């Protein structure tokens, strides 16, 4: 295959990024539940334990708080750990280390230490894993100053943003949607970085801006393609990072299109879309709005087990199409 067009899955791209990081810097190591011999609950670490040994690919006991504590401590003392939570839902168990320790230490110690830890969170619904294994909690962590929170939406970004996270002096939380792990896409060889804090315009358009995160980026692109035939020209902004937010890209896009639709899988109320809506309403883009801002987010309910109900709790392509069409045609 032509190297320039090499395709990898999202999971393979992350694995390759972790291998490159370990090759480049001997301080980098991996920790997590079942990431060694088993290869990770979603096979993201794969055979890395065979290539780098159990000193650098470490299975932890089933104690997220303990594992996160070790990772934060290692980072403070000069290592570059990458810690995998088996499911992002279990972030709740590691919150003390993430929110009270990792996020605060640089500030409380006068900038004399930093916490260069990377934490990976397989997130989102769609796998039939029910209420405690399907949530999208990125907004929880996005609320905490001192953390950086990213949601790569493509294999290319999954690799480049993980390498950026490893190089970052501060704690970086990566939310990886589980349904994206099998998504294939072009991934360049070798080391490259996709900067944290920079949104990407995935599709240019003039009638409506859709700001989407994670798996909703692809759904928004599918909706935009479907609406092309109706003469509706949609711009899709992939937010990529939710802390720090790339305000200017969103503002510039809304100034161009005059309409904003936010699409995200996390629960709608107090979610990413609420923040994006507010930042636009506060900005100079306000005077460019020609329609109300609309949010499509997760339903106000725990994720159900029943597959049809599970689908119904998060925005799907037809929902995006309907909302976008209504906005552009002036129905809402």
């Amino acid at each position, binding site marked *: 295959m032509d190297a320039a067009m090499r395709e990898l899955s999202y999971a393979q791209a992350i694995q390759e990024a972790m291998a490159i990081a370990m090759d480049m810097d001997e301080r980098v190591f991996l920790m997590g539940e079942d990431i060694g011999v088993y290869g990770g609950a979603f096979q993201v670490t794969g055979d890395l334990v065979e290539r780098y040994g159990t000193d650098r690919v470490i299975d932890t006991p089933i104690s997220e708080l303990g594992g996160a504590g070790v990772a934060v401590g290692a980072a403070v003392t000069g290592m570059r750990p990458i810690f995998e939570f088996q499911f992002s839902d279990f972030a709740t168990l590691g919150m003390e280390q993430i929110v009270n320790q990792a996020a605060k230490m640089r500030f409380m110690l006068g900038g004399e230490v930093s916490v260069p830890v990377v934490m990976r969170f397989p997130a989102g619904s769609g796998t039939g894993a029910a209420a405690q294994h399907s949530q999208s909690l990125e907004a929880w962590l996005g609320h905490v100053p001192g953390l950086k929170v990213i949601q790569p939406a493509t294999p290319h970004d999954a690799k480049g943003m993980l390498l950026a996270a490893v190089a970052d002096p501060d704690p970086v939380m990566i939310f990886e949607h589980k349904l994206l792990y099998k998504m294939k896409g072009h991934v360049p060889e070798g080391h490259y970085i996709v900067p944290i804090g920079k949104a990407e315009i995935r599709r240019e358009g003039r009638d409506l801006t859709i700001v989407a995160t994670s798996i909703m980026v692809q759904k928004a692109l599918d909706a935009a393609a479907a609406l092309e035939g109706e003469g509706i020209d949609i711009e899709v902004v992939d937010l990529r990072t939710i802390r720090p937010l790339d305000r200017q890209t969103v503002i510039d896009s809304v100034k161009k299109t*005059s309409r904003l639709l936010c699409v995200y899988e996390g629960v709608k109320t107090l979610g990413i879309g609420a923040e994006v809506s507010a930042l636009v309403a506060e900005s100079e883009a*306000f*005077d*460019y*709005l*020609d*329609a109300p801002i609309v949010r499509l987010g997760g339903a106000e309910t725990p994720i159900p087990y029943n597959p049809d109900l599970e689908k119904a709790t998060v925005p799907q392509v037809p929902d995006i199409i309907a909302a976008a069409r209504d906005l552009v045609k*002036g*129905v*809402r």
Partner: protein
Amino acid sequence: MPTEVILPKVDMDMATGQISRWFAEEGAKVKKGDVLFEIETDKAAMEIDAPASGTLRDVTGKERVDIPVGAPVAWIYADDEVYEAGTTQNGAPISPLVGEMSAKPTKGGAVPPASQSVAPPSALPFLRSSGAAATEGGPGISPTRGEIGQSPSGGRATPLARRLAREAGLAIADVKGSGPHGRVVRADIEAAIAAKGAGAPEQPTADTAPQTPVEAPAAAPKPMSDDQVLKLFAEGSYELVPHDNMRKTIARRLVEAKSTIPHFYLTLDCELDVLLALRTQLNAAAPMKKTDKGEAPAYKLSVNDMVIKAMAMALMAVPDANASWTESAMVKHKHADVGVAVSIPGGLITPIIRHADEKTLSVISNEMKDLAGRARSRKLKPEEYQGGTTAVSNLGMFGVKDFAAVINPPHATILAVGAGEERAVVKNGEIKIATVMSVTLSTDHRAVDGALGAELLGAFKRMIENPMGMLV
């Protein structure tokens, strides 16, 4: 803030609706979920619930008047909200459009041109300054105007519209809003700027050209105007009855069907004697069932029920004819969904027996009775009369011998059924008496060619004349 009650969108493609009946009146106490009013869409009536609890005020949505979707028709004041007359944004009455026009024809006996009989969304007064409205009335309409409660910035407008208006030196209050709830949007301001500049004779430049498309020159000959028609009759020799939504829909859809579908027609005679005998036998065999009114047969088949079934089975036998035309592809249906024209007061409607090919005669018969009953009381849901793959129209009960029906898109065919009557038929050189029914198939030539239509009609005839086939 009082809760606004709007005319909701209850049907796809619905631009306006009429309130057929209010169940609560000005000043009434309502509870969230109470039925407030009934709305008549093109073909059905639906009940609309109160969105909040409180006191109903400023009921401006008049009965039997076209109202744009999204327009406020009343407000609900919560118990702790103080009501002062005319303070809500639509304090002025919705202009009496169709309703009052008929009562007040102008001097010449003419009604205003049709274009004014249906209010475009922007022509509603609830957001306009009274100065602008006064010139809008048109002959015969002089709506009484109350004070419009206006916020200092002049009604609803998007931030972008406000900024553009500010920059152009326009007052938002002078601009008619075309957005939802009468909201002024960018296009309205741009149109207003263009209109302002259009006082000069020169062509507008590309930059200032109105966004709204200019009416295209008519390609087809225009029908006579209302004025032209009415001039042909003496004043006082007639009464004007405004169209209801059903009448408008029927007119629009039939003009569309007859002017866009290339129809052709095929007629056949079917002998009914065997079918009538079988029907008698089947009805006699119906088991008794307990109902509210005592015991009744579980079914009572009509000839029309058997025609529906025969048409469905014929389409299954000739699947190429079970199609719908679209510009890009032929839609070949996997089931026969048979619409049945039902005459109802003021018009007709075509409820659909879905998957009629798979249903037994008794199921079709009972379903048909239910649909026809609810059609007459206008309680059908849109999904019960939209779509379908063919239709049957039966005027046999009026003694009509033969007629040709207009195809109801997206169907490619419709079967017009005449009366079953005793006729002299020639069989093997002898004249015999048989009960004969003439049927005419109207066919969309784009989807079904002559030979294919003939094949379908032949399959139908075989099914009618060998009706045992419908039982298995």
